[in-house]
């Protein structure tokens, strides 16, 4: 059964009723990312789709407040009208997960969806100025606000980001937005092996050129996007002369790695949405780790589990596809990562595998206890998305 309340009070009422009846609730926005995290078992569903308005937009303050159910598409249209954009370039998971519907702001925040620009402008959590939310007791609460700087009380708004709706139902989100650049160009070096490519990206990122995205697509993956060999990619922005100057400096700094060419296509949406792994039946993992550790880890996983991989965030974000099998090679992936530090999340796999394998990086015991206590502090009856983050 699904409720689609069109007021915040309506959300709170549903929650209070659910507490009284001990009915667990599944929370959804557009339903495009329901396959992320662990499967939820809940008798009722609350959809935020009807809470889809803009509360406030002040382009001169780079500030936008919108309800959680607003679609990212509608949001983007509004921002485009003022030549602005979201800072964190949220991925669209539909192609990768094979889902329909429209991604919403609340969904993107709940799963902390951050794209290539995260490298330069921060993650979804860094864009959040404030939230209104309903906790697991049905209290409507505010945290943070709509001003750019705010240290009044604990930073609960950021905590809500990536909590997968397990701590509260976020109804409204205040965000910092940013101007679009006049010029956006992508430059590429062809044919680098992974290790050299990551060093090249680090070299570029050590330059004051405000590189807004940095990725490396090894040979097989790059072909999916129409490259003929491995592609090491940088996105450069600014006004016309500024972008030209930045490309000139990067060309010079990277000359040892090969020729830097401006390419005509824009690969960043495909990289953001992991299109290279869309439409097949392999398991997909997302690894957050130190860029410098990534090439060796990827080499080992190619060897051990036949993984295919590519790198975003200068190498700090590694996407891996491998045979799903019974456990999506969880052991091999987490063991290799444990040796160097970082965390792995299983992004795509069948419900059966996601129920059997820890989707999120298992926490050490004391942190797992903290997580459980924190969940209780916000949702004492355990009715919000039970099981989504942990069993």
């Amino acid at each position, binding site marked *: 059964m699904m409720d689609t309340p069109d007021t915040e009070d309506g959300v709170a009422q549903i929650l209070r009723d659910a507490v009284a009846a001990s009915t667990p609730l599944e929370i959804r926005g557009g339903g495009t990312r329901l396959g992320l995290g662990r499967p939820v078992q809940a008798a009722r569903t609350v959809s935020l789709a009807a809470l889809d308005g803009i509360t406030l937009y002040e382009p001169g303050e780079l500030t936008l407040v919108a309800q959680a159910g607003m679609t990212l598409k509608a949001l983007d249209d509004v921002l485009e009208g003022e030549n602005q954009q979201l800072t964190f370039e949220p991925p669209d998971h539909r192609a990768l997960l094979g889902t329909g519907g429209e991604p919403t702001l609340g969904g993107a925040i709940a799963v902390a969806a951050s794209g290539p620009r995260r490298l330069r402008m921060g993650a979804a959590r860094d864009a959040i100025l404030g939230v209104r939310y309903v906790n697991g007791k049905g209290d409507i609460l505010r945290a943070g606000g709509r001003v750019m700087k705010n240290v009044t009380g604990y*930073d609960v708004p950021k905590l809500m980001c990536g909590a997968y709706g397990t701590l509260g139902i976020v109804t409204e989100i205040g965000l910092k937005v940013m101007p679009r650049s006049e010029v956006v160009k992508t430059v590429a070096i062809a044919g680098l092996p992974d290790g050299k490519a990551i060093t090249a990206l680090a070299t570029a990122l050590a330059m004051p050129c405000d590189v807004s995205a940095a990725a490396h697509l090894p040979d097989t993956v790059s072909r999916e996007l129409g490259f003929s060999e491995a592609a090491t990619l940088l996105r450069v922005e600014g006004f016309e002369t500024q972008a030209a100057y930045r490309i000139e400096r990067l060309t010079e700094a990277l000359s040892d790695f090969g020729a830097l060419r401006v390419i005509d296509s824009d690969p960043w949406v495909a990289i953001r949405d992991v299109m290279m792994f869309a439409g097949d039946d392999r398991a997909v993992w997302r690894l957050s780790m130190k860029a410098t550790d990534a090439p060796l880890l990827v080499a080992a996983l190619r060897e051990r589990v036949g993984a295919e991989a590519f790198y975003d965030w200068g190498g700090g974000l590694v996407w891996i596809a491998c045979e799903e099998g019974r456990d999506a090679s969880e052991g091999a992936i987490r063991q290799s990562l444990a040796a160097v530090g970082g965390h792995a999340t299983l992004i795509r796999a069948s419900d059966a595998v996601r129920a059997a394998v820890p989707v999120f990086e298992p926490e050490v015991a004391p942190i797992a206890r903290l997580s459980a206590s924190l969940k209780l502090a916000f949702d004492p009856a355990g009715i919000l998305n039970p099981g989504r983050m942990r069993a």
Partner: protein
Amino acid sequence: MIEMPVPDQRIIAKRDGIAQRLRRIVPAEQVIHAAEELKAYECDGLNAYRQPPMLVVLPDTTAQVSEIVKLCRSEGVPIVPRGSGTSLAGGSLPTADAVVLGLSRMKDVLETDYGNRTIRVQTGITNLAVTGAVQPDGFFYAPDPSSQLACAIGGNIAMNSGGAHCLKYGVTTNNLLGVTMVMADGEVLEFGGAHLDAGGYDFLSLICGSEGQLGICTEATLKILPAAEGARPMLFGFDTNEVAGEAVAAIIRAGLSPVALEFMDKPAITVSENFAKAGYPLDVEALLIVEVEGSEAEIDEQLTRIEAVVAPFSPSTVKRSSNDIESAKIWAGRKAAFGAIGQLADYICLDGCVPLSQLPDVLKQTAELAAKYDLKVANVFHAGDGNLHPLIMYEANDPDSSRKAEELGADLLRLCVEKDGCLTGEHGVGIEKRELMLTQFNERELRQQMAIKDVFDPSWMLNPAKVFPLSLSEPHVEDRRAA
């Protein structure tokens, strides 16, 4: 006057024994218990409030911090963590029954990693020393609180500190990747790491800005960024605060991303100019300093664009720096402002934030409220993000003047909240704004935050009497300890 809780005499009675046991954890000279030496720790930057602690301990290692916390916990002694003691909000004000745990000896750079653009430090290191460690290689640490020469990274994490250049680079939470934290029970845990995103709940965002109430951060992994080739400011003078405020919004709306956008009102201009002789015009109501960075050509183009955007607002003064000497001169008055005002009077520096669109009205009402209390207020602040720093001038030796200054400060902060802003943009709540929290949040909202504190510090032993109104926290803590 802000009240502090009544100290627990049963704890104070155990003072000598606790000092002795602390001396088994750290070398004897790192436990301070002589009255004249404790005085150095009796206050922080909010020096109207003073209270020497029971003891001070200055550890060298995370393991020692853990042992100290365990000892204090077993004896029921509250701990007040302290970085460099520069808090303007009383964030490290001791209680008479507390041990101050000072990080001042823990200043090492543990690792610099240019390949991943991170630095790992002990949290007693000063903010500026972090930049100092990586500057020769062309990097810097972005958050730049104006106390950066003295303030410690541990304090920056506790308060989620910002600074003039946060408009472009963000505040501490946006530049913090991981911490080693000693929990309230002495356990040592790692949150985050050298990678960009942590898994699970975002504990790091709770820890940053928690004012030392959730644990004691002893090590931190910070992002470092490549330094710009150069930077240059431009100065604009306006006939009214309203027009200056509109110009700020126009610059931001135009997509020009200055690294700093500083605002000074007439009283601040006059005082600073008389003191620093920066060449500021004295016949304007408001000054804007706009700084951009990049190569010479980039800087020129950006400043030209900014000048064009501001032109329709008819600035009465336009000064564009063309070299380092001129840049220094433009900044001289702004940088001297606090010192110059300090020469004239004692002052309270507030830290409210308001939406930019409310700026003119807030400045107008600030002047009216100041007149009502018969006090002078100068405004010097980060305009790009609406972070106001009204400086209320008063006589610290005159109790009546002190009382009025505090009341005016509270009125101004209430005004910020009314205008959809907040009590504090970068200084933190500490004791200073603790009782005002109920103007920003309702009781339920604060109780939800207190429930977070319960998770990390079930007995409420870390940094007591900060952040939450005593009327809420004291009965809450009594209930918990009884249960």
